[in-house]
């Protein structure tokens, strides 16, 4: 009996059940169904992973297995959308990550969302999201991926807009959907281009390494790049939209309007890394057919991570800080993929990137869930309303600290290992890029500890009622994820996932590792100095660079630019004139034709007056004319 389709079906069933039953179901029942089905799914995913990695390798490589596949829609003989399950190291790894984080979020939400109106709806959407995300990672072909790609987009839209009576949430949901939709247009166009030249959607054929697949596109170039490069760049645009890479990142900070567990699941751990997964999935194609696109990806990743880290340093909403930190970390992963080569030590970046994806999912989910616990306790997202929380919430405090250390890259926490590998790969590729990333890593440590101190230490805020530790359903996921964060770094990740599938043993490059730890330590020290206690220096620093500070606070005006483009250019500049044109020119022409006809008929109506005498006169005149004519001619 094949288990993998069941992993997907369980959340789907749970969605249908809770979604169709709606409020007829008791909230507790809906939560129970969702959580239970996901627990089962997670169990099956672990089982699948265990089974998959324990099957012996074939020629040193874990085989790609398609245990389940059926034709869903046929376009032409070669092009057809199949729905199926593809198991290979990265999809199995993603299955584990998604089910784990999703399960934790399900459990956590039992406590966090308790008593909320629409609890059943919430669980239905969570299940829908989990189903779509799982479908995305096991996709056997690029069109299946696109299908689930759209589905995760919609479930993200629904969950961001969960508090639909709040105008900000509605606006954020809309923004998220439209920005990613715009990117998806690139994805779709990329798929069309790629499939036109390769006559296949299938990942198995595309990534088989057989360059004959791409022979159809040989020689076709556009603006100096091959068609396949263009297709792959466009596909990357889709990934960049979902993964909130600069300049398509604007939706992610706003998406924090959704419930916090949702941010943890969708906007930190799973959906936003879909872009990374997409590039990783097509990595052999990128590497063989369009290495220049990979370099572009690395550059975009580096710019994104630096930009987001700078902005994160000045945000005051704790969820926004975490959002920008997510953007920054995804930038890291993209750089890792971009600088990677194929096989052996060259493929370090690929392995490191996915390793970082794995560890990041855990500790970032932890951070968000911790932030959720804090928001639950103090009823605010603003740092100014917090401070001195360490004595009220010991569990949250400790787990949050673990996550902060992990993301800052302090050994022995998981983030250290994965981030260090990315840095090593980047330095190996290009020292300038490496230096930028190191600087970003320092910024990361700084803003994370700024966040940490402002929440848990600094000046205690005035609380109307004393904050309390989160209930068990919420603290259990925190502890569980913290435990994973503690040990995950020691997983021999290279044994399972590497660019060419051959086992790769990670060895730390102590020169770089030592350096980055030192930098991170220094950044943490600086943060301690500035934010451990209430300290005027921070304010003075901000005042010393007013322009930079203001620009960073405003996220370098990217949102304003978008607003200008969408509102002013597209809405007022294109749509309004088009609508006006339609009403007045096109329709005006038709109405003009109609009124012209009317006028003309009015003009000749005089002849048909109904006055017999007039007719008689005309008849007489006509007769006389004819007679005269006959006589004269």
């Amino acid at each position: 009996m094949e288990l993998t389709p069941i992993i997907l079906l369980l959340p789907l069933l749970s969605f249908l059940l809770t979604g169709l039953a709606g409020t007829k179901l008791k909230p507790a029942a809906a939560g129970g169904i969702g959580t239970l089905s996901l627990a089962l799914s997670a169990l099956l995913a672990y089982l699948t992973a265990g089974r998959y990695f324990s099957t012996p390798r074939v020629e040193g490589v874990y085989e790609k297995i398609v245990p389940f596949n059926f034709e869903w829609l046929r376009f032409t003989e070669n092009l057809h959308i199949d729905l199926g399950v593809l198991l290979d190291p990265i999809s199995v790894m993603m299955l584990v990550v998604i089910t784990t984080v999703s399960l934790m979020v399900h459990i956590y939400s039992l406590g966090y969302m308790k008593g909320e109106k629409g609890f059943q709806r919430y669980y239905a959407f969570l299940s829908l999201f989990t189903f779509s995300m799982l479908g995305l990672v096991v996709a056997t072909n690029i069109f299946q991926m696109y299908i689930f790609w759209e589905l995760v987009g919609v479930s993200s839209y629904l969950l961001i807009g969960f508090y639909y009576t709040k105008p900000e949430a509605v606006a954020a949901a809309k923004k998220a959907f439209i920005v990613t939709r715009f990117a998806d247009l690139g994805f779709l166009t990329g798929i069309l281009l790629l499939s036109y030249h390769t006559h296949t959607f299938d990942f198995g054929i595309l990534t088989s390494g057989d360059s004959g697949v791409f022979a159809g596109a040989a020689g076709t170039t556009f603006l100096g790049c091959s068609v396949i490069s263009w297709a792959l760049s466009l596909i990357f645009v889709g990934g960049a939209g979902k993964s909130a890479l600069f300049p398509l990142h604007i939706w992610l900070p706003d998406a924090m309007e959704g419930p916090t567990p949702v941010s943890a699941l969708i906007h930190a751990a799973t959906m936003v890394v879909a872009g990374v997964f997409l590039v990783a999935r097509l990595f052999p194609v990128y590497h063989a057919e369009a290495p220049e696109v990979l370099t572009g990806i690395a550059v975009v990743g580096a710019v994104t991570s630096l930009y987001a880290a700078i902005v994160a340093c000045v945000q005051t909403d704790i969820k926004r800080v975490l959002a920008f930190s997510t953007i920054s970390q995804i930038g890291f992963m993209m750089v890792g993929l971009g600088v990677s080569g194929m096989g052996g030590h060259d493929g370090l970046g690929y392995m490191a990137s996915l390793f970082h994806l794995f560890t990041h999912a855990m500790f970032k989910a932890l951070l968000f869930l911790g932030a959720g616990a804090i928001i639950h306790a103090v009823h605010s997202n603003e740092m100014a309303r917090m401070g001195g929380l360490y004595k009220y919430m010991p569990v949250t405090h400790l787990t949050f600290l673990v996550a902060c250390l992990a993301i800052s890259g302090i050994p022995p926490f998981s983030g250290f290992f994965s981030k260090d590998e990315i840095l090593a790969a980047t330095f190996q590729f290009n020292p300038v890029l490496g230096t930028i990333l190191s600087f970003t890593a320092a910024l990361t440590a700084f803003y994370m500890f700024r966040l940490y101190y402002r929440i848990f230490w600094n000046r205690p805020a005035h609380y109307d009622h004393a904050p309390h530790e989160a209930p068990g359903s919420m603290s259990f996921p925190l502890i569980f994820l913290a435990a994973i964060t503690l040990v995950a770094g020691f997983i021999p990740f290279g044994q399972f996932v590497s660019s060419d599938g051959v086992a790769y043993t990670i060895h730390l490059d102590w020169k770089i590792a030592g350096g980055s730890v030192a930098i991170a330590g220094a950044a943490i020290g600086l943060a301690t100095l500035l934010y451990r206690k209430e300290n005027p220096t921070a304010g003075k620093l901000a005042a010393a660079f007013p322009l930079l500070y203001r620009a960073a606070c405003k996220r370098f005006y990217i949102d304003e630019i978008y607003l200008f483009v969408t509102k002013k250019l597209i809405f007022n500049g294109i749509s309004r004139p088009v609508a006006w044109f339609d009403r007045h020119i096109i329709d005006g022409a038709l109405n003009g034709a109609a009124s012209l006809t009317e006028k003309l008929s009015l003009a000749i109506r005089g002849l048909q007056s109904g006055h017999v005498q007039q007719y008689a006169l005309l008849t007489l005149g006509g007769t006389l004319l004819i007679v005269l004519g006959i006589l004269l001619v």
Partner: protein
Amino acid sequence: MNILSLFVLIPLLMMAGLFFAGNLKQIRCVVTIGASLLLALAIGLVIAYLEERSAGETAEMLFTADTVWYAPLHIHYSVGVDGISVSMLLLSAVIVFTGILASWKMELLPKEYFMWFCLLSVGVFGFFISVDLFTMFLFYEVALIPMYLLIGVWGSGKKEYSAMKLTLMLMGGSALLLLGILGIYFFSAAAGAPSMNLLEISRTHLPVESQRWIFPLIFTGFGILGALFPFHTWSPDGHASAPTAVSMLHAGVLMKLGGYGCFRVAIYLMPEAAQELSWIFIILTGISVVYGAYSAIVQTDLKYINAYSSVSHCGLVLFAILMLNRTALNGAVLQMLSHGLMTALFFALIGMIYGRTHTRDIREMGGLMKVIPFLGVCYVIAGLASLGLPGLSGFVAEMTVFVGAFQHTDTFHRVFTIVACTSIVATAVYILRTVGKLLYGPVLREEQSHLADAVWYERLTAILLIAAIAGIGLAPLWLSDMIRESLLPIIEHFQ
């Protein structure tokens, strides 16, 4: 008795029944029974069709019947169906059924209303079963005329203006059609085999010079009904003024007559001219697709939004037809089905919402999701279908169109495909804008905070349509295969 003729006979019998019906109850009884029969008949026809095909029947048209009607001009009453017309008949039956449910509470002259409605159905069904050009044209006209009265008498807003505009524009289209059909007839006569029968004419092969001037006539004539730019302006006004069920039937089925006609007459009979002249119409339909979507972004009347969205979606149908390859044509038919169901759902919901709030202006509504959750959820589903969410019919249709159109070897066609693709972003914008303003946020008006949610017949309408949309969206293969198979004879002309 031929099974297909029943599709025309039942609505006629319904009209007779209505003539004798005394009160509202009897009227409802007659129309419900009739519509259910039609629906059952359509489903039965699909099953019978699939059975015949799987039994190895390879004829181009099945269930054919032929009676001479007027011998001197070779006019026959000749019917037959292939996979495409079968699916269109099913669509029409579903929409007639739900349309009748949606006009359950019709109070103004219900008897006359339903009689015209049935006459409209006669035209629609008759059009899809005909294989004789003249019969086809006749039924086309039969479908158009009731529209004038249905909008003019039972409509709202500037109904006389809209009804007049719609009828005049569509009549203008049929004038072109008549000219084209006569042209086809006389050239087929000149070629030695005078006939009005589609299949026979397709075999005789019209001379290319005559195709060149007949093709634009026919394509424009049918295109006007399919909202071809720049002859689409009847659609926003007409839909906005029409009563709910008429909007449903009009956008859901009648606009499909245009697409179906383009495909069955223009492309099928004149393949050479289609290949030569398609570029002009590709530009026009490309404009329709994008232009409709952008116009919809700034509209404030729910029906106008949906009407412009229909311009965009129907533009995609014609666009796909012009790509002249099997996948794109398949996509065109799927898009007709999908758009028919989707837009019928939209208009039904708009009618229901309007019945409660007495306004269609999105600036005057807000937060309705909290007040009328059932209608709200249905509206969101309709919206998601319209913006192409996988699992609903819109995705299947649009992707088939895009992939198919992109298989064209000519760069011009592929560039235009990408242009058409951009409409999916604009679609997302206007759908989400509408949903956000209409359903989400706080309740805007005090009097809107206590509205009653859907009652049984409204629920049934919405659920039936959603089930059909999701059905196509989740399991498209059988439908798509049925259509693909029937496309073979049409596509043969291009090779």
